[in-house]
């Protein structure tokens, strides 16, 4: 076995490592703080691997070119931050309906608008889910350490390729720029998934073959000539006005993620067994929460942490289960209550749900969480 390489990496650099490990060979994007190091890293690394990198004229161009690259058969990615994420939304919906695999990294910064470019934020949680129009499936991952950015980026590519859908990786500016020791995995250490290739002859191929929940996707230029459109389409890819087909397809793209929730969900549970108050949070805020839980335990408070690494689809089962046996769920987040709304929805009044918000460009501290939890005891 090759010797493991340990490196001190910035979150955004770890993202590059994860993407390349997962087989990403196409990157298109537009620079924006605090995500730019990803694209800079890709511009250096991809050509060495025979991959393609292009700096586009704006974020829409970035995601559109990445979708073109993916359709041509390369695992593709784009990365951005708040304002750029807003610009990409129409293309995200396009990727959902046309079922083109793609990874979109959003290093969240303070908003709205240009907001606070160098300040951390978690205010794109809802944009990730609802940013594009129309009901559509969303998978979004929320790492909270630098090593986790690497591994969750690998997971994002695997999910995108398996489910033929865009997958987002959301983390805040603190994680994007912080440095932690990271072990670069050896080949084979993590599973790497590739999209299914058609097994039928070109004349029998349908890009949305209704024999499948997720049909194989042939790359452009491989002899499988087919049509892709953002209009509602039939299994052969051509537009349709047939209301039954439209409904079935709209439901299917939701269902492919929905019925596989169990495999997409991923939570870290810290001291939940006997917990009376549980903190639910993601990203850098979870780091403060973990610290607070330890401090609370020291003073005899039965606190726990539920930390989703998959924020979309929302971890309904874990939150429902916890809500039936704790006094309160505290939701610290760097926004004005985006995850709190979801926790309230799932908890259905079975326990108190309290948000702890911060939108001043500063992180939520362990002591803020510590004091908030104590209010419930």
């Amino acid at each position, binding site marked *: 076995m090759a010797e493991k390489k340990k490196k001190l990496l910035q979150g955004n650099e770890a993202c590059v490592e994860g993407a390349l490990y997962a087989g990403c060979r*196409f990157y*298109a994007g537009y620079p924006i703080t605090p995500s730019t190091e990803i694209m800079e890293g890709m511009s*250096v690394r991809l*050509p*060495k691997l*025979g991959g*393609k*990198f*292009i700096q*586009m*004229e*704006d974020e*829409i*161009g*970035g995601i*559109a*070119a*990445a*979708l*073109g*690259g*993916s*359709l*041509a*058969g*390369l695992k*593709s990615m784009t990365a951005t931050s708040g304002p750029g994420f807003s610009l990409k939304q*129409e*293309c995200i919906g*396009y990727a959902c309906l046309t079922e083109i695999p793609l990874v979109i990294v959003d290093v969240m910064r303070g908003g709205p608008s240009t907001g606070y470019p160098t300040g951390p934020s978690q205010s794109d949680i809802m944009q990730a889910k609802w940013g594009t129009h129309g009901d559509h499936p969303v998978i979004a991952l929320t790492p909270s350490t630098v090593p986790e950015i690497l591994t969750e980026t690998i997971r994002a590519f695997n999910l995108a390729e398996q489910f033929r859908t865009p997958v987002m990786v959301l983390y805040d500016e603190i994680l994007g720029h912080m440095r932690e020791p990271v072990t670069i995995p050896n080949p084979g250490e993590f599973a790497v998934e590739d999209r299914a290739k058609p097994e039928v002859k070109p004349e029998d191929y349908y890009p949305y073959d209704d024999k499948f929940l997720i049909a194989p996707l042939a*790359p*452009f*230029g*491989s*002899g499988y*000539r*087919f*049509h*892709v*459109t*953002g*209009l509602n389409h039939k299994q052969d890819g*051509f*537009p349709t006005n047939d209301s039954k087909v439209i409904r079935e397809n709209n439901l299917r793209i939701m269902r492919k993620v929905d019925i596989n929730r169990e495999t997409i969900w991923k939570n870290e549970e810290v001291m939940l067994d006997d917990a009376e108050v549980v903190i639910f949070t993601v990203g850098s805020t979870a780091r403060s929460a973990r610290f607070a839980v330890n401090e609370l335990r020291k003073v005899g408070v039965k606190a726990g942490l539920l930390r989703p690494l998959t924020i979309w689809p929302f971890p309904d089962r874990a939150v429902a289960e916890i809500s039936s046996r704790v006094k309160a769920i505290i939701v610290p987040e760097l926004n004005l209550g985006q995850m709190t709304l979801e926790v309230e929805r799932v908890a259905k009044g079975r326990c108190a749900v309290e948000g702890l918000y911060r939108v001043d460009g500063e992180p939520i501290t362990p002591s803020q969480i510590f004091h908030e939890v104590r209010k419930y005891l």
Partner: protein
Amino acid sequence: MSTPVAEKKEKLSVPFDYNKYLRPNKLPHIWCPGCGHGIVLKAMLRAIDKAGLDKNNIALVSGIGCSSRTPGYVDFNTLHTLHGRALPFATGIKLAKPEMKVIVVTGDGDALAIGGNHFIHACRRNIDITVLVFTNATYGMTGGQYSPTTPLESIATTSRYGNIEPPFDTCEMAKASGATFVARGTAYHTIELEKTIHEAITHKGTSVVDIIDACPTYFGRANKFKSATQMMEEIEKDGTVNVKQAASLPPEKLAGKMLRGVLHKVERPEYCEKYETLIMEKANAKK
């Protein structure tokens, strides 16, 4: 009715077999009676045939609009994207698979308004993509609003009192942006158009063909044209002059006319080749 000499010379003894390239059962197309887009589509297919391209190797990419419905009818790798975004999608395909022939079909609104930024940057990169701009001087699909090529004072549903925005000269813009092949054609001059498109798709680098065609339904009706024929005669035939003929015409005969034919053709390193020869080589040398 007189026929220009160039059109008369080349007689085709058999009808061209469009079915070789059309998808079965997709006709009739959605375009209105007399819409120029169908004429342009046919010229494009003849040009592709002449170039001897392999269907498996062609990606035809469009945005949104009446013109952008073209890919649905033809048997290539076809991609109907979002309004204005055909070029960046096409750029992604081309860069990922440079061996593919990538052609963009786009409307004047699609290419020059919402997609204007992508248009100039694609030209600047000189990436090997052919861009066919279907210039009908209106937004056909949304019902005839004025577009970036609507002539001054023309009537549209959003310029009921006359358009006060000067139109773009698509070719000048493409040239200034760095496209290495720039040409103009019309649906009326269909054989000349076929040749021009053929030259565009066999050119290495960004090639742009501005194709004047008619939207009888909206631009035509709003501006008191009686028929598609009248539009083709007045706008496409009388409103343009071939660049070669123009050389020998006095200025007063050229006033208000758009030039047709190949307007600009230069050699400049192509983007994907540069990527291979410069970026890839340097990146790997550094290893």
